[in-house]
């Protein structure tokens, strides 16, 4: 994984060398959204009737909704009828080994630093590589299956474990929840599904890679992770996308369910094409991520390191329903050039004796703008709920900005909230001290930013932490102009 990360990093270092797209036969539906398109998507995937119904209900609900707009973001309006909702590379019927996978696809993975040859398989990470709208290769299925863990593409899960999918799909993020969730529920094409049965500690860290390929293809991934009593899983998500001129839409939905004494760690290291130095191009990243601590003493943590992305709008949240459950949110968001980030979290305390922790670090450089928007709500039955939040901003120069907008609503007298935030800058004298000790300005900035983000980086699985640090370094190259 580390070597993988290194290769990925080299790719990114060359001025977003992932600026290419695979010239492969793509089966693309005409742009536009209608009931017809949805039926076509569902038919092509051979989905059961209940799922088609579910999609259609979501679609009709979406038609009645209004797109939300937030004060802190500026973006061009999205034409939903101009997007192609389905793009699958034409391959033969299901490869039984890697030899059978379309060589051009494998080449794509190589370029992205996701080599799927045997040597990498032994490094111990299962990779569910999602190429556009269809999962191509899922490795380690057997090893995981032995442990009882189900991990694979969402489409496969619908085929092989329909009762599990049906039981949990949409129970955390119902289609009517918000505009983008409704859209996703109607047109999602694939994603990851993971089920960890009671008492099982998933033997390896699971990960997935996304890729947005054909022009004007929205990416609508649906991920569902369920961990039963006493189970444990750590899930990594990392993204990369090719250089484009038009903005691309990414509206995923991630649902996590943790039952009694279960734990889910969900980590994201994300480097979207950020728009060029003048802010042209880039990705719209509207994601609904929510975890429900359904069981007693269950635990869910979201850890994310985000750089790039023209418009980021996501609020990984935790619903703390089970007594004694806990939710955590650790985040680093870096913006430069004209990037905008509006991110944060919602911690909703419903059951008794719940706790939540929020650590958010924003680094703004160039003309970047970072907004943190957080909600901590303790409901009328949330006895003895506790929250600690810490939101810090680091501003690297004139022209960038930071916004912190926490909302705290305590509706039970025993609720206890502690929120603090500060802004700071990299002080001239701190930089000079490091340089006098022999570090270049670049190295000094990286060291100080790393120190600033330390609390979050240490929550990441180790190799991800290495990749995150490198990503920060690459992102901030030349930022102190």
């Amino acid at each position, binding site marked *: 994984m580390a070597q993988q990360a290194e290769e990925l990093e080299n790719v990114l270092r060359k001025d977003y060398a992932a600026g290419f797209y695979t010239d492969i036969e793509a089966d693309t539906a005409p742009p536009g959204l209608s009931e017809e398109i949805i039926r076509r998507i569902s038919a092509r995937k051979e989905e059961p009737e209940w799922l088609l119904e579910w999609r259609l209900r979501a679609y009709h609900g979406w038609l009645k909704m209004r797109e939300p707009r937030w004060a802190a973001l500026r973006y061009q309006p999205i034409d939903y009828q101009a997007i192609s909702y389905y793009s699958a590379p034409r391959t033969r019927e299901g490869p039984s080994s890697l030899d059978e996978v379309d060589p051009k696809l494998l080449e794509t993975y190589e370029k992205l630093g996701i080599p799927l040859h045997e040597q990498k398989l032994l490094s111990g990470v299962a990779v569910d590589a999602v190429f556009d709208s269809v999962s191509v290769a899922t490795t380690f299925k057997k090893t995981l299956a032995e442990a009882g863990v189900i991990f694979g593409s969402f489409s496969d899960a619908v085929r092989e474990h329909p009762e599990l999918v049906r039981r949990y799909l949409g129970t955390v993020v119902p289609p009517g929840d918000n505009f983008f969730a409704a859209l996703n529920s109607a047109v999602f094409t694939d994603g990851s599904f993971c089920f960890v049965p009671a008492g099982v500690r998933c033997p390896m860290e699971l990960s997935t890679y996304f890729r947005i390929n054909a022009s004007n293809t929205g990416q609508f991934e649906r991920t569902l992770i369920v961990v039963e009593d006493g189970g444990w899983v750590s899930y990594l998500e990392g993204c990369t996308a090719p250089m484009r001129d038009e903005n691309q839409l990414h509206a995923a939905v991630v649902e996590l369910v943790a039952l009694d004494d279960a734990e889910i760690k969900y980590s994201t290291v994300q480097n979207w094409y950020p728009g060029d130095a003048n802010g042209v191009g880039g990705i719209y990243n509207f994601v609904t991520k929510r975890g429900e601590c359904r069981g007693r003493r269950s635990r869910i943590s979201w850890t994310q390191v985000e750089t790039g992305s023209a418009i980021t709008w996501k609020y990984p949240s935790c619903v703390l329903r089970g007594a004694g459950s806990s939710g955590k949110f650790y985040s680093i968001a870096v913006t430069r050039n004209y990037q905008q980030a509006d991110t944060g979290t919602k911690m909703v305390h419903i059951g008794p004796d719940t706790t939540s922790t929020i650590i958010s670090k924003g680094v703004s450089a160039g003309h970047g703008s970072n907004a943190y928007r957080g909600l901590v709500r303790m409901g009328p039955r949330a006895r003895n709920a506790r929250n600690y939040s810490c939101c810090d901003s680091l501003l690297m120069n004139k022209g960038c900005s930071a916004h912190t907008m926490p909302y705290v609503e305590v509706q039970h007298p025993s609720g206890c909230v502690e929120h603090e935030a500060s802004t700071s800058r990299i*002080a*001239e*004298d*701190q930089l*000079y*001290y*490091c*340089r*006098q*000790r*022999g*570090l*270049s*300005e670049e*190295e000094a900035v990286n*060291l*100080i930013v*790393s*120190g*600033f983000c*330390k609390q979050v980086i240490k929550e990441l699985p180790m190799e991800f932490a290495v990749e995150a640090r490198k990503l920060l370094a690459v992102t901030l190259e030349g930022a102190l102009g």
Partner: protein
Amino acid sequence: MIEIRQLQVAVGEQLILRGVDLEVGAGEVHAVMGPNGSGKSTLAHVLAGMPGYTVRSGQAQLRGVDLLSMEPEERAAAGLFLGFQYPVEIPGISNLQLLKEALNALRLRRSEKPLDAVEFLALVRKRGRFVRMPEELLRRGVNEGFSGGEKKRNEILQMAVLEPRLAILDETDSGLDVDALRIVAEGINALRTPGRSFLLITHYQRLLQHVEPDRVHILSNGRILCSGGPELARAVEEQGYEQLEEEASVDVGSVA
């Protein structure tokens, strides 16, 4: 080791150093003393490349290489170390972490192999034992919550690990109690080698009782007023700067 010729330095519009000539040979310890406002810190800062100072004229050469045209980290790589009068705090980065990065950066520039964590810790323990910094302190943020004495000892520890050719210590003795002063002095003495020179910037001669200098220079009004051996420091102690300044001007006058 270092040759300074006719150095004139300004801060904004104000000219602080008005033509300083100074030479420190290899293995020598020189003290630069002077009253407040004489330009002592300016001299230290401008040699180390701190921003905010304009060199109006003059030059400085470190082992034959032009110092003033180099970036701060290049000067460090060339072997220059500045012990700060007010070491800054950098929370979030531990002392050990900064020192390891700095040492490895230096080693890389010299085409040496960087040290891993285990090797580095061993080195720190070996070199820094006379400074007696508890490791627990070193794991804290850089100078975070350190007392004045602890900050100065930390500077000496860094010096011991980085092994500079020229160590400029800016008022290292200020604010130290008796015990801390002794530890700092021991540290400096332990690091005196034929290949290393020291420039001690100091107001009082306290430190010089423990670290015997080879030469003492009195800086006044941006110029070296006079130079001498260790006895000059004692003269300062007894007579004060004012008197020395008067005597010097009388001498100049009588020469004219």
